[in-house]
């Protein structure tokens, strides 16, 4: 945690404060606290069942914490007025595990959804934005396709393109590499890193893919199912060699404890 203090001069975009997550009476996470800083790629890692996705769903307002709170840009995600939360929501994008594209709409219509609330935009500009974003994720000229016509990797890319239509400040990813072959997965990592570099987008990524974590992660926090909390916070490359916690070292070195 010393690490974190050194960085405290950086701007905080997300602050999770003493959050406890309970689902159907089971406590999944207990009293966890951490901050996400502007422009970083933060990985939330942990073994299956440690509550990574649950944590992310609390951060994006899908689940309500049993205790504690989550602040995005200083706005309490769960306690804010609807209008304040709506303003925050416009600044975040989420790539769901399955992509979350609406199956009944073409990619273009899917991407037009976040723009729909901006009815004052001329149609041609909307179309240009959609084409530009699809191009950024390597899916140029696909706006007429239905999600069912795409491969798994393309669906993730399309979901990413839709998540970034509004140029969000923060992008959340739920297991972006799940179900992708290693080559496709590397391509998606590169795209994520490019967007982070080019647009300065803060990235919060739930994953247990070690290659991705080491390749593009600036920082990781590791959750543990038994402790129901964070057992490591720092640069994954540093933690791999220097962490004193056996669980962390084993995880990062692919050892079965």
């Amino acid at each position, binding site marked *: 945690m010393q690490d974190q203090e050194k960085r405290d001069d950086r701007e905080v975009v997300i602050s999770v404060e003493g959050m406890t997550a309970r689902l159907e009476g089971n406590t999944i996470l207990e009293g966890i606290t951490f901050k996400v800083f502007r422009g970083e790629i933060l990985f939330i890692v942990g073994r299956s069942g440690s509550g990574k996705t649950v944590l992310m769903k609390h951060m*994006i*307002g*899908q689940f309500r914490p049993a205790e504690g709170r989550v602040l995005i840009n200083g706005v309490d995600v769960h306690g804010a007025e609807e209008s304040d939360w*709506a303003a925050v*929501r*416009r600044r*975040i994008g*989420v790539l*769901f*595990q*399955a*992509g*979350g*594209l*609406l*199956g*009944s709409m073409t990619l273009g219509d899917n991407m037009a*959804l*976040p723009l729909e*609330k901006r009815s004052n935009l001329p149609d041609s500009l909307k179309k240009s934005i959609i084409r530009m974003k699809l191009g950024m994720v390597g899916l140029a000229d696909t706006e007429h396709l239905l999600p069912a016509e795409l491969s798994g990797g393309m669906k993730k890319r399309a*979901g990413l393109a*839709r998540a970034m239509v509004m140029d969000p400040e923060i992008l959340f990813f739920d297991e972006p590499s799940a179900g992708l072959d290693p080559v496709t997965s590397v391509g998606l990592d590169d795209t994520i890193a490019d967007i982070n570099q080019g647009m300065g987008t803060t990235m919060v990524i739930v994953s247990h893919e070690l290659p991705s974590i080491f390749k593009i992660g600036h920082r990781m926090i590791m959750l543990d199912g038994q402790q129901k909390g964070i057992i490591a916070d720092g640069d994954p490359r540093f933690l791999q060699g220097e962490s004193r916690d056996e669980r962390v070292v084993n995880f990062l070195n692919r050892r079965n404890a």
Partner: protein
Amino acid sequence: MSQEKAAPGGLKRTSSSVAVSESTTGTVVVTPVGRFSLDEAELLAADLHTAARDSQTSGLVVDLSKVSYLDSAAALSIKMFAGDMEQNGRQVTLTGMGGEVQRIMGMVDPRIVEDVSASRLSHPEPVPGTIEGIGEAAVATAGSFKGLMVFTGELIRAVLHSLFHPRDIRWGDVAGNMRGVGVQGFPIVGLISLLVGLIIAFMSSLQLKPLGGDIFVAALVGIAMVKELAPLMTAIIVAGRSGSAFAAEIGTMVVNEEVDALAIMGFDPVRFLVIPRVAAAIIVVPLLTLYADFFGLLGGLLVGMLGLDLTFITYINQTGSNIALSDVATGLVKSVFFAVIVSGIGCYHGMKVTRGAEGVGRATTAAVVSAIFFIVLADSIFAVVLHYL
């Protein structure tokens, strides 16, 4: 002094055999020869035990050098045999294991199957006691009632919003759903109504004809169809065709996180997904009901003209003078309520899907069953209320 043993039970083996010999030092050597897989495992075990019984020595050698192939089942037989012998105080030595045989023998651990009698392949279903069962059912019913009420509240809020902001309604989706519920539903609604009209006319004519009351068939069919059966049958058909489809469509969207994605993009899922479906049903179901009225009367007319010697004009006049416009209106008002019930319940069951594809299947069934139940319940309430109005 080698001797071939016949396989026990007269079973024939083609690719394997077991030879038993006694060495000069008095040790009994059992040599399985050939391929041993799942099919031969039982025979192999029997042969090994026979050889052990026939010899009196305390030590037994199983020579595996002639085995060309051994699968895990056969390896398990050998290991279990060795274990049995050791329990009886006899020593079994395994020799001559080639690389592959040794590998498979190393994978097999007979301890894991020791208490095989306790293992069950079926999933244990806990059977609750009577009182426990009643309690659980009560809690479940209260839970689903609460869920339905919360959903109804959200639906009413969304409907009010849509009434005041009609431009927020996704009219494209409404049109698409109107096609699904209405246009594609016309043939089956028409056919069923025609048959129902035929049946009522035919059955009532059997009763009325001996009394000379042929002419009343027209009124009977007319009133029954317009006030009661056309709205009811139409609603049940729509529940089966479209209520289930709504549950499956929305349920699949929940499973694919499409609904979560909508919410995070700032769309109210009820307004986005439910309102277009409910609106389409409200527009189309009354039209389908009128259509059902027409075909039901046509069915009656066919029986009247072909079976009762009534003329076309007489039948139509009789029908017209017995049905008031208010009867048709009653049927249409009912059909609007039924439309809300069918589409609302279909969407509700879709929205509360959890646990993947299996949940979608359950939601579809639940949507149809509970929609039909609520339609009939609402119809009974209408019957009583309209009687006293």
